[in-house]
């Protein structure tokens, strides 16, 4: 009997103990006559009918199509040039100036390999030109890779500097010393050097000034990344730490010339540390600022790209490229957005017309049917 009795409690709706059954459940009050309790809150009851939606379709169409055209034109006006540093095709690759360099697999080759890739511009690049390096089939978004970093260390936390996060494994320590910066991302920092020369019609080479400031997010550079103990005496600060295995020089030697671009706040480093979304990506490398006079930033003509080829990509069937691009208000060249807007705008417009026809043809009939009934 007792177990029988206990079973009753399973339902959980027993309001009170059995000694008080019934009494507690009796309500003697009249329910409040409030709008909320009576479910009579004043309410706006929009009805989507053809009448209200049709204009919306036309409006959307009318707004989207110009935006799309604007985007498309803008994107088309953006000049972009891609220079392949590693070719996909095995057969053509042999003829690539960097073929020899790209054959090297290892990091440890003592002598840097250089190659020069010639290319030419058909049209001048006006305004600021942005120089990107692009990698393909490089999984910066691999989970093991993405998490292999220690943001507190990069933020200048001294404790983390000495004992980096476990996430950095297997790039956490080397020679029993903590690695700074630790982790796979930092370890695989892109370390090619790209230099751009303009070949004058007379054959002489003019180096094009490449600015390395302003390539990283401002907040990253100034808040998220910080050297431990300020930007001075980085050698001292980083004493007791070890450089990442694949690096040739320590983190405090990244840009010895400029203390504001050295150590963790080196912009090349910061850019690299922002892991790319897709396995084919580009990262901002340098900026070529517009010249004060009217001459184009990059006049048309022949150029040579001098590559210090350090970064092996062949082992994972990767591809390396250099991209020169101008930038508009919408960013880099990407026709997708413009096309998408034009398409959606046209579809809306078209639908608007179709609906209008349907509405006119059948809507009236429905209406009359309503009246009849």
């Amino acid at each position, binding site marked *: 009997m007792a177990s029988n009795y206990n079973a009753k409690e*399973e339902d959980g709706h027993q309001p009170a103990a*059995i*000694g008080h059954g019934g009494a507690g459940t009796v309500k003697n009050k009249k329910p409040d006559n409030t709008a909320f309790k009576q479910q009579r809150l004043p309410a706006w009851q929009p009805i989507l*009918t053809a009448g209200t939606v049709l204009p919306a379709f036309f409006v959307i169409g009318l707004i989207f199509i110009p935006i799309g055209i604007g985007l498309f034109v803008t994107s088309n006006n953006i000049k972009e040039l891609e220079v392949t540093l590693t070719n996909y095709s095995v057969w053509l690759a042999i003829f690539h100036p960097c073929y020899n360099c790209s054959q090297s697999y290892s990091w440890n080759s003592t002598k840097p390999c250089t190659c020069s890739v010639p290319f030419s511009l058909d049209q001048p690049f006006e305004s600021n030109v942005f120089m990107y390096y692009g990698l393909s089939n490089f999984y910066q978004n691999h989970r*093991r890779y993405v998490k292999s970093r220690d943001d507190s260390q990069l933020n200048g936390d001294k404790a983390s500097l000495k004992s980096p996060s476990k996430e950095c494994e297997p790039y956490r320590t080397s020679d029993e010393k903590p690695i700074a910066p630790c982790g796979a991302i930092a370890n695989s920092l892109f370390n090619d050097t790209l230099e751009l020369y303009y070949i004058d019609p007379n054959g002489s080479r003019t180096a094009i000034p490449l600015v390395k400031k302003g390539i990283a997010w401002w907040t990253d550079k100034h808040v998220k990344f910080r050297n431990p103990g300020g930007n001075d005496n980085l050698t001292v600060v980083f004493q007791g730490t070890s450089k990442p295995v694949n690096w040739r020089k320590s983190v405090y030697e990244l840009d010895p010339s400029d203390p504001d671009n050295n150590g963790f706040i080196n912009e090349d480093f910061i850019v690299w540390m922002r892991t790319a979304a897709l396995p084919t990506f580009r990262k901002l490398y340098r900026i070529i600022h517009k010249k004060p006079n009217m001459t184009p930033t990059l006049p048309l003509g022949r150029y040579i790209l001098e590559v210090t080829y350090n970064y092996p990509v062949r082992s994972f069937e990767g591809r390396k490229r250099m991209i020169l691009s101008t930038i508009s208000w919408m*960013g880099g060249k990407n026709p997708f*957005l413009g096309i998408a807007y034009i398409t959606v705008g046209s579809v809306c417009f078209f639908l608007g017309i179709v609906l209008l026809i349907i509405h006119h043809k059948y809507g009236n009939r429905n209406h009359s049917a309503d009246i009849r009934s």
Partner: protein
Amino acid sequence: MLRRRLNRLFGRDERKVDSRTIYVGHRPCPATEALIPPKFCDNRIVSSKYTVWNFLPKNLFEQFRRIANFYFLIIFLVQVIVDTPTSPVTSGLPLFFVITVTAIKQGYEDWLRHKADNEVNKYLVTVLEDGRRACKESEKIKVGDVVEVVEDETFPCDLILLQSSREDETCFVTTASLDGESNHKTHYTVPDTERNLESLSATIECEQPQPDLYKFVGRMHIYRNNQEPAVRSLGPENLLLKGATLKNTQKIYGVAVYSGMETKMALNYQGKSQKRSAVEKSINAFLLVYLCILVSKALVCTTLKYVWQNRPGQDEPWYNQKTQKEKDTNLYLKMFTDFLSFMVLFNFIIPVSMYVTVEMQKFLGSFFISWDKDFFDPEIQEGALVNTSDLNEELGQVEYVFTDKTGTLTQNNMEFIECCIDGFQYKYADSGTELDGFCVTDGPGNILQQKAGREKEELFLRALCLCHTVQVKEATGQGDGVADCVEDQVDGVMGLDGETVGPADLGGFIASSPDEVALVKGAMKYGFKFLGMESKNMRVMNRNNDVETYELLHVLNFDPVRRRMSVIVRTKSGDTMLFCKGADSSIFPRVRQEEVDKIRMHVERNATEGYRTLCVAYKLLSREEYDQADTGLREAKLALQDREEKLMAVYNQVETGMSLIGATAVEDRLQEEAAETMEALQGAGMKVWVLTGDKMETAKSTCYACRLFQRSTELLELTVRTLVDLGRKREERLHELLLDYHKRAVQDAPPIKAGVTRSWSSANQDYGFIIDGATLSLVLNSSPDSNSSCYKSLFLQICQNCTTVLCCRMAPLQKAQIVKMVKNCKGSPITLSIGDGANDVSMILEAHVGIGIKGREGRQAVRNSDYAIPKLKHLKKLLLGHGHLYYVRIAHLVQYFFYKNLCFILPQFLYQFFCGYSQQPLYDAAYLTMYNICFTSMPILANSLLEQHICMEVLMDNAALYRDVAKNAMLGWGPFLYWTLLGVYQGLLFFFGVRFLFSNPALQDNGQVFGNWSYGTIVFTVLVFTVTLKLAMDTRHWTWINHFVIWGSLAFYMFFSFFWGGIIWPFLRQQRLYFVFANMLSSVSAWLIIILLILLSLLPEILLLVLRKPRGPHSRQKKPVVQSGEGETQSPRSSARPLLMKTFSDESNTIL
């Protein structure tokens, strides 16, 4: 007695007759051997489930027994153990939240139970111990203690009444908290016990505890100075139940016989079996689908991962070396952990929060029912009562309505209409018209304007005044009871007091059945006043204002099997007379046949007019006859076993050879708006079955009055009457009739689709089916030949094709049987039972949804119901209004939840194809966690509480709208597929739209590039906005709360993202989202793609909305559809109409 049958359902051990022996006051008795104190449980009531110590483990165990919780626990554990992409916090936090909230809720409820238990257990009671009065806590009472109870106290345990302070050795109790009957019941002391309780030496032998409140059999042996022990029989009239309250009596002494958990009250608190709604089953089915999606996603990813890794240089490129540990791990183990990791990554597709939201929606939503002022009844000052919130949506899915007749369709407010004495009809017209108050209207047949002799009239009226168990409630409060409060049932219902203020100086009558009062009052109108009891004498004031006294010798109680009751009285002159009243079927065989024919016509006519008829008979008992009956009754009352059967035998023996005096007709008015309600229910496509204990004719007339049967309805009758027609074997006839009806109703019906059958079209012949209890049991439990199952299915098929089925002469258990049969038939339709009396409890418990009416028949039905409403007419709003809305709301809630999580997780799944199947999450952990908890949960909760896609008035005016959601229409596989496809479409759109944008990640005007977290954030922003706006589009009823919550959660999302990305969080190892959101907003392209994708994902929805125009007419605008308009014009007429105008038209339609 009905309750006894009910309880047989629960307490099956009734038959285990095994008695217990109790030593009154723990005093050893001379006749027995040395006192071995028998072990009984203590008087502690434990209704609580937990103690402080076992709360945590027990509660956790119980919570994790639920499949969903267990699943989330597993996911959490996997996250803790295996290196998974998301931190354990993401799923641990919501789980912890859910578990904690539930635990707190259950803990609080248990604390309340503890408190209430303590209140009962620590209550101080006075116990007589060795002649002293001692105060004891209630829980310390032991069986055998003599307990003192004073007025207005509740009895601490089940007591045998030994002594009362009242002169007449009685006491009054009210059992309001036990069965809801608030009238005073009289209980008797054990006869001839000593006044001095200290010297009382007695043992009580009684049955083992059993739950039936109205049954108790025991024997008391009283030992006096070595005399032969005196034996007294003990019955329920001697037993005071724990929980009942002492009234009108200063104090009593009783000996405890059952204590604590063995008291009848404790035994009666059987749990209601938990009812699950159809929506819950749909949720579970959808869950299964999503679980399959989840597993297959994980499997696909795992497989592809290993395929991909097999290509050279992909598994472990130089820039992304594995740790030593990873390298050492066994390949298959790695595969398995990878699989688990994917599961964890995608597990958000089955969100914890859905359960929380659904629970909250149900819980909060149910308040709207109890808050509804339309359900408030000024008469009883009460509104609707919600006993469970689990079934709200089920109210919108009802296909079969089983309704009780008495008290549900009718008011159970009896009024004496007319009587027939010796074949002459008397109708009371106006008090002043004739001297004797009698006025003859029309007589049966051709005998008109003739009165029965005055003698017969007076005999009849005396019979009415004497043959009842009514008590007179006097102003002084000294209400002497006539008899023990027996449950008097005339159509098988339990009565509460039919208390009405009587005229003149009488305070009123109290009776267990309202028609008894009606009869007594009817007699009063004709000049015979019942004045009450005076120590076993009934006093009646006759027409000449003389007081006649009759000594009440025996009351032969009413029971539903005999369907009659009798009293044996002795007149002043010494004659012993038996008066008997009861149903015609039970009286006619027991009276002289030549009398029957005169009365039968009246009775049948009255019955077809919807009146309740009773026949009155009397018998003059000779001395021998009486002596024989007297001894028989006394013997039977003393029997410890089979007392009822023995009593019954004596009753039947006495009630023979009576002479019929007359018949009465009592009207039971229809409930307010009963016809409209029934019509609305039928219009909504529900099939209404009337299950009643009443006579077929009465029930049929009620059905006509309620317009359940229309004039055009063809009636198929399957009753005892139609069966005996040919004098053949009943089963053959039954078989034949069934086949015939089946042919008519099922086969000949034009083969139409299910949807059309339900429609209201007049072209179709409506069928009504009538069956009675006896035939039903023949159908259901027919002899074990092969036909029985065939009968049942034939019967079901016929019934399903009838608009209305009337089942009369039903026992409560048969009602439940019918409900069960329909519930389990093909398509498992949703059933609803509505009733007001204890006899409806079984069907209320059996049906999917049980509705109790707070009528005048006690609270038994209300307490066992899922919802209780004051009046029948409220059923319309409850189903058509609230039910419809609840169903639409919860269906939308469920579909929306699955949809929003599908398009949440799909991009994450697609991302795996671009990140080397490395389980890299697309969204930040904070977003993963907060998505379901904060960003998207409140709008849908508000929507699912407030949404009125069609406003309440329109829903109620237009019953046909209910059919739109019938058969779980919004949670079928069709809508599910639609929502799933929508989710897939949007998920694909989100991911690939951003993917194409990111083919050039330089999205800012300063040439800087975006990384993977920006990617995720853009997708997530589009997602949150789309999902919220999709809800906004579905919202048809925008209150300020909707506005606040929808725009508020979007604003909160923006705020949170700024906040989350605006600070270098000190205790976090990673700062992935630092300024990602702000940077995203600084990019025009990001804005453009967000707007484009939101619009594009909502475009199909908008299109569908426009194209799906036919919904227009009966949406919000109050365009009264013609049909309903006609219905409305008709309805007032019908309600004003007297009970029956189309009385006999049914007869011609009946197929015999």
